[in-house]
């Protein structure tokens, strides 16, 4: 149990390091870096906790992105920065890179390498499985992070009271 928790914390820390890395790439203000770290930690923790509880990765990504989208609004009030500044970097670590890689790999094998028709069927299966996972995770991430702002939009975050 404790081992699992420690592993979860480690993964969450790496996800927040990735978030901060992208924050710096996007030239986020210095004051926002600590918030990006915290939100990245929270998002990674929630996502991997939910996956550990056997929730599907698409739904887990959606809920983690939703968490970032919701928390970034009171944060915007507190440190007087627009919410985009610290809502985008923390969700970048959730990009389904491995699914994308598997999709490209199976397409490549399908076109250039495999000649056996029965194995080609497996590759088509892999293409669709990984490709649609990637697609839906991307959609759930974007929707999750931008939904709170779109729902509560009153032309500025400063007019939203929580």
């Amino acid at each position, binding site marked *: 149990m404790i081992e699992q928790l420690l592993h979860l914390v*480690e*993964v969450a820390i*790496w*996800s927040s*390091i*990735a*978030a*901060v*890395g*992208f*924050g*710096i*790439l*996007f*030239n*986020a*203000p210095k004051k*926002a870096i600590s918030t990006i770290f915290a939100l990245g930690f929270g998002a*990674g923790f929630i996502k991997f906790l939910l996956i550990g509880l056997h929730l599907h990765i698409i739904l887990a990504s959606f809920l983690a992105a939703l968490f970032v989208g919701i928390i970034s609004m009171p944060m915007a009030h507190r440190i*007087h*920065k*627009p919410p*985009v*500044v610290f809502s*985008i970097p923390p*969700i*970048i*670590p959730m*990009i389904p*890179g*491995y699914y*994308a*890689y*598997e999709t*490209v*790999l199976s397409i*490549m*094998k399908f076109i*250039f*390498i495999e000649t056996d028709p029965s194995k080609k069927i497996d590759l088509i299966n892999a293409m669709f499985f990984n490709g649609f996972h990637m697609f839906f995770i*991307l959609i759930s991430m*974007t*929707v999750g*992070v*931008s939904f709170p*702002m*779109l729902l509560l939009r009153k*032309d*500025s975050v*400063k007019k939203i009271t929580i």
Partner: protein
Amino acid sequence: MPFTKLDRAASLLLDMSALLMASGANTNRVNLTLNRFASVLNCKVSSLISHKTLVITVLEEDTNLSYTKVQNIPPYAVNFTVISALSIASWKAINNDWSIKQMEEEVNRIKGITRYPKLVVLAAVSLAGAGFCNLFGGDYLNMAVAFISTFLGLFVFQKVHEVKFNVYIRVFLGSLIASTIASLGVVYDLGANPQTALATSVLFLVPGVPLINSFTDLMDNNILNGMVRFTTGLMTVMAITLGLFIAMLIFSVKLI
């Protein structure tokens, strides 16, 4: 307000919105900030915002004089410090009722905002690549491979940027270099899960900001801008895939 004054106001508003667009703000935010600044200048503003060009008309309501001006948007480079500084400036301008001179000074100050030093960016993004690799189940050796390949990929990306190559060719080169180096990890079978390093080495190029902005623009019914952003995001993804694809083809013997 005479025309020279209207011209000054229009130039200020155009400068500001061009900065915002180039820094990666969505269309709604640009319109919002335009209206905030215009309300301080006691005029109304209507705008046509496209990906490369801005057109605005400033209308002074008492005299019914209007002034239209067009400006091109500089090359895009995501910069959250600029977005945040302009947002803060718009609130200060409203609350303290700034004069046009104060606003011009502030916009000029924001134009001069520097980025993080290149070495810091390289280190931070490479660490992010290593972090990604951990998330996908790589061990520390894989993370080291991901770190090195991201570092070199981003280094090439920055260097090619200095000689002003086309952006998609830059992305392609960055992705090719990063994935070629990560493929070496697969060829020599380093670590527990060498494929994760290859999958994560190109993620620093992922167009996260255009794709998220595209979604919010589409939801705000700025369909044209949303489609343009989506297309640029898609072009970038295709350039990344091409680089990864070629690297994998070179080493295809080992990947089967």
